């Protein structure tokens, strides 16, 4: 079942948490809401669930307007960041709750709960209380409880936020597999871009109550819509300069910018990702910058180099592939040339 959010706004007092937000979630897809803290992700998710009322705008499930429908009539599964399990109920009773309040016959409750406990691989712990489970186990129980009444949509608010890195990694892969099996329309909130990009079919990037960009992980990664998205995705080097007659100039760095063929210069900013910079021993004719290696950290699949570019007075972050690092025999203190492979230029006006 698809979800359509149209022009939703929400204020808390004088604070505008969401402003004219529109989002489409295709039926059966898994969508991530990604954005910095306070950007309104939780608020949007809660409005979709019906836990919060929008000041204006509409929410549709498929073609049905549910803007004014009460939570309990919407049939959504909601997974809370801190599990929100019922502490006085066993794992079995927690999962069965949604079925019992719907007055499912006892036998079917037992079957359905058994099925879900097997799905989350916790059938052995059916009789335990939440306090006896680990964080990861609790979150799986919360997920099973949300899925038990066969919800039309599944909403997850930072489902793995309270877990440690390793469990988090496991659970998000598990969530992806689970989604591939059951195909319930799902929206999950996260502020971990790796999580969003790894798990989701589509990613919605939010900032200050606005949607900045929507697209597949690949689209967003390859074509960030604006400086915010670019910057948010991280690991970028920023050069301030100007564009004039179709060229962007920032010190010795020059790239084409055909969108501004005019004579009068405009301030602009160039962004280059750290893995889109090459390190060279000699200037090779391409636009490159001279710099001095200040630090090398060879842990992980790429070597992270910090290069001080005296012309700009800035430190560049460069990811050097391992074999390239070995080939060049880089040492701290070496003078090198850094050449961008891909530069994104934004006119200053568009920067918020």
């Amino acid at each position: 079942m698809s979800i359509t959010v149209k022009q939703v706004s929400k204020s808390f007092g004088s604070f505008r948490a969401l402003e004219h937000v529109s989002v489409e979630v295709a039926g059966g897809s898994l969508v991530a809401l990604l954005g910095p803290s306070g950007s309104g992700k939780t608020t949007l998710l809660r409005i979709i669930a019906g836990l919060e009322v929008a000041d204006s705008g509409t929410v549709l499930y498929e073609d049905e307007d549910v803007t004014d429908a009460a939570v309990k009539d919407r049939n959504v599964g909601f997974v809370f960041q801190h599990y929100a399990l019922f502490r006085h109920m066993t794992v079995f009773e927690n999962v069965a709750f949604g079925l019992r309040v719907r007055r499912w016959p006892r036998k079917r409750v037992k079957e359905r709960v058994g099925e879900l406990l097997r799905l989350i691989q916790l059938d052995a712990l059916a009789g335990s209380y939440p306090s006896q489970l680990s964080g990861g186990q609790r979150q799986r129980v919360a997920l099973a409880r949300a899925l038990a009444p066969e919800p039309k949509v599944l909403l997850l608010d930072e489902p793995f936020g309270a877990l440690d890195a390793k469990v988090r990694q496991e659970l998000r892969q598990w969530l992806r597999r689970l989604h591939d099996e059951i195909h319930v329309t799902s929206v999950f909130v996260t502020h971990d871009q790796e999580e969003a990009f790894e798990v989701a079919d589509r990613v919605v990037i939010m900032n200050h109550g606005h949607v900045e960009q929507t697209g597949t992980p690949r689209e967003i990664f390859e074509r960030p819509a604006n400086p915010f998205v670019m910057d948010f995705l991280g690991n970028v080097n920023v050069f301030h300069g100007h564009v004039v007659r179709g060229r962007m100039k920032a010190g010795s760095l020059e790239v084409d910018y055909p969108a501004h063929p005019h004579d009068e210069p405009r301030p602009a900013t160039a962004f280059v990702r750290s893995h889109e910079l090459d390190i060279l021993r000699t200037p090779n004719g391409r636009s490159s910058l001279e710099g001095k290696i200040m630090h090398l950290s060879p842990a992980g699949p790429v070597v992270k180099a910090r290069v001080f570019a005296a012309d700009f007075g800035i430190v560049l972050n460069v990811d050097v592939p391992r074999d390239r690092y070995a080939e060049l025999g880089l040492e701290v203190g070496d003078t090198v040339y850094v050449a961008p492979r891909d530069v994104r230029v934004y006119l200053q006006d568009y920067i918020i």
Partner: protein
Amino acid sequence: MSTPEKTNPRSDPRWVRVALIAAALGVIGVLIVIPLVDVFVEAFGRGLGAYWQTLTGDADTQAAIRLTLTVAPIALALNLIFGIAAAWAISRFRFPGRTLLTALIDLPFSVSPVVAGLIFVLIFGLQGYLGPWLRAHDWRIIFATPGLVLATTFVTFPFIARELIPLMEAIGADEEIAAASLGASGWQLFRRVTLPNIKWGLVYGIILCNARAMGEFGAVYVVSGHITGRTDTMPLRVEKLFQEYNTPGAFAVASLLASLALVTLAVKTALEWKTRRDLAEAARLRSEGDAA
């Protein structure tokens, strides 16, 4: 546009709220407010002059007020010293039997006041364990002020200690250890480090203890012997006047005790606000410290 109640799953429908608030106010009204107002209405019913006359014109009532103002402070002082000693020992040191000791301190709360009085009669009364010996030395404890003090001290025994123990445990010993390692003497340590930290908790314990000490009835009833003008405390005087069908007199004394209760409540509420503010303040400072 839907109403928030309809969608917000935590808020109850308006009619439910109104009905429950009305019911709760009704309960508080009948159970607490009406009786409280009635005390003062009965006491002042025949005018301020009559009220004043009832209180000041009766030598026995005067004696009862004086006795209460003697007994309660002594009991309070005894329990104050004990409370501080017990809190110091229990919150600052670990020793075998510590949990049991903490539990034993609460014991007097589960002893009926009448039984509390009785146990002292059994020891110090004429037929008690020490009765003959006391009589030989011409000492009176039961049916005299010392008995009243003992009984009152017993029933108010836990108040200050149980206020201080959790408080001092929460505060921790770090500051005191620091002071001790700087060479502070025991008394300096207490005066300059411990006392400033616990003073509000101490005041809280003291007012509760005092309210109970001045208002205690059952325990002192048993040990007093009801010698009018000599061993009647204010609550006992209320009962005696009531038995003598002197209702205005009984309510006049009762109104004094009720005022004491109101003052106690006011101080208690003020202290609770203050503590809540302090806690919020501390939490704010801590989070700012983290952010920095």
